[in-house]
């Protein structure tokens, strides 16, 4: 039985009220939307805030809309289930819909939100444990301790970014709108994540309002591949988002490959994506480019032994998932998972 530490719940109804509460309580407050990340973490005493500010009733964070230019504006409170089922998202940003549809299990997707997944805390098997367990080990770098149990002598936390939607949003060049005391601002998703496992975001004290996915061209193809031990519930052992924009003659005009669950920030695999440019799916050139992309991705990806699944196995699966996810994108199918 895991009890939550004591806190007071605040349930603001507007963004301004929520911001004011965040300013008032500062570091003693935590924001919660669906609660599927924060609540278990609070039960493990990784966070013991005095005030929990629920965003669930803030109307400004709701809704999905499509702008005149085809861009999608996704409210931070959009549940992962709603995102996975939304016809506009499935048509315009298939990798994102597929990634949202593979997060955890049905109940968690119905509770968990896009905003929560973007802002997900990094994960490590030495960190996501009860207080008793962590204390027995002398704690760790990320919480309450000074030693890293993953990298001997490591001075930098390597807890893994484990959000399925992050690589999909990176591949789509998404932008995030945050609201803080100084008003609203828009940042590219590339600028949100840093390589620090303790807190892998560059934004603090602001509220994620919406995620903007720029319009994708007519030849846009996308897919998401997720390696995990079971077909449901698990966090990714490896996540690959693939994007191929095909020109009118069917050749790859632009490509993106992004990965998650390898290190503290989601990664762009730029070199691997570049070899696909100018090839046409279905040809021997494309097949050869898939092999090369897999090899280049494997060179760049170094999974650590800090999340479930053997690190060597996860590394061997990098080219496999890069190839399968790119193929699925080219065919307009997906998602890719083998359980």
């Amino acid at each position, binding site marked *: 039985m895991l009890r939550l530490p004591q806190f007071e719940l605040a349930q603001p109804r507007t963004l301004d009220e929520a911001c004011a509460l965040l300013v008032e309580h500062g570091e003693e407050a935590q924001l919660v939307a669906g609660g599927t990340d924060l609540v278990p973490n609070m*039960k493990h005493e990784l966070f013991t805030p005095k005030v929990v500010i*629920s965003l669930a009733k803030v109307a400004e964070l709701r809704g999905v809309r499509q702008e005149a230019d085809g861009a999608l504006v996704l409210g931070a409170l959009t549940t992962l289930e709603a995102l996975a089922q939304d016809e506009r998202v499935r048509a315009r940003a298939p990798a994102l819909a597929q990634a949202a549809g593979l997060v955890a299990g049905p109940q968690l997707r119905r509770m968990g939100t896009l905003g929560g997944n973007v802002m997900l805390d990094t994960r490590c098997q030495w960190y996501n444990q009860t207080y008793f367990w962590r204390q027995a080990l002398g704690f760790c770098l990320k919480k309450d301790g000074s030693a890293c149990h993953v990298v001997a002598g490591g001075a930098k936390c390597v807890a893994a970014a484990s959000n399925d939607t992050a690589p999909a949003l990176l591949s789509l060049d998404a932008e995030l709108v945050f609201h803080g005391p100084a008003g609203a601002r828009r940042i590219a998703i590339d600028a949100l994540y840093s390589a620090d496992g303790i807190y892998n975001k560059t934004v603090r004290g602001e509220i994620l309002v919406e995620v903007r996915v720029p319009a994708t061209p007519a030849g846009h193809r996308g897919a998401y591949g997720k390696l995990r031990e079971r077909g449901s519930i698990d966090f990714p052992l490896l996540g690959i988002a693939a994007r191929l924009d095909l020109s009118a003659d069917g050749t790859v005009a632009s490509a993106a490959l992004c990965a998650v669950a390898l290190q503290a920030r989601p990664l762009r695999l730029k070199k691997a994506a570049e070899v696909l440019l100018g090839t046409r799916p279905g040809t021997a050139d494309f097949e050869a480019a898939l092999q090369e992309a897999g090899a280049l991705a494997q060179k760049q990806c170094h999974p650590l032994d800090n999340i479930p699944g053997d690190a060597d196995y996860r590394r061997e699966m990098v080219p496999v998932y890069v190839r399968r996810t790119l193929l699925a994108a080219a065919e307009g199918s997906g998602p890719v998972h083998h359980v």
Partner: protein
Amino acid sequence: MRVLSLHVNGDRVELAAPDHWTLLEVLRYRLGLTGSKQGCDKGDCGACTVLVEGQPVLGCLTLAASCGEKPITTIEGLMPAHLAAGGTGPDPVQAAFDRCGALQCGFCQPGMILSARALLNRNAQPTRPEIRAALSGNLCRCTGYTQIVQAIELAIAESLGVEPCAPAWAPGTNPWKLAAPAEPGA
């Protein structure tokens, strides 16, 4: 501590609970509704599944104070709802679980049945893969899931007035299963 006014199994209940109590704790330890099980208590197992506004969610990760007036259904509320709707006996999914022996220890059963009930409410004729997907957030450590899926298929067949489809282990339904040896002398 705050006074909550919850809408549980068709009844309005007022109770006092601290802000940090989960819906599961309020159901079990304030209202005595111990049908919802406390399993992993951190969102992995699905034993605490309840329906909020008809949709399965995890009681162990839902803050009771955030439920407001939303209607909540626990396993205890299924049979009364079925009777109130003019049915007889327990909910058809519950009855089918009983008839198919879709449980051993029974710990996952309330969550399984509520996930299945929500599925059938939104889709009266789900396919076998759809059933398995709808139950994929509920872990069972005893049965191997086979009879659970069979029970839901039985409940569907009965609601449609047709013969239930062959269970997963029946000859001919598993392509990888060897054909039965021929009867001697046949």
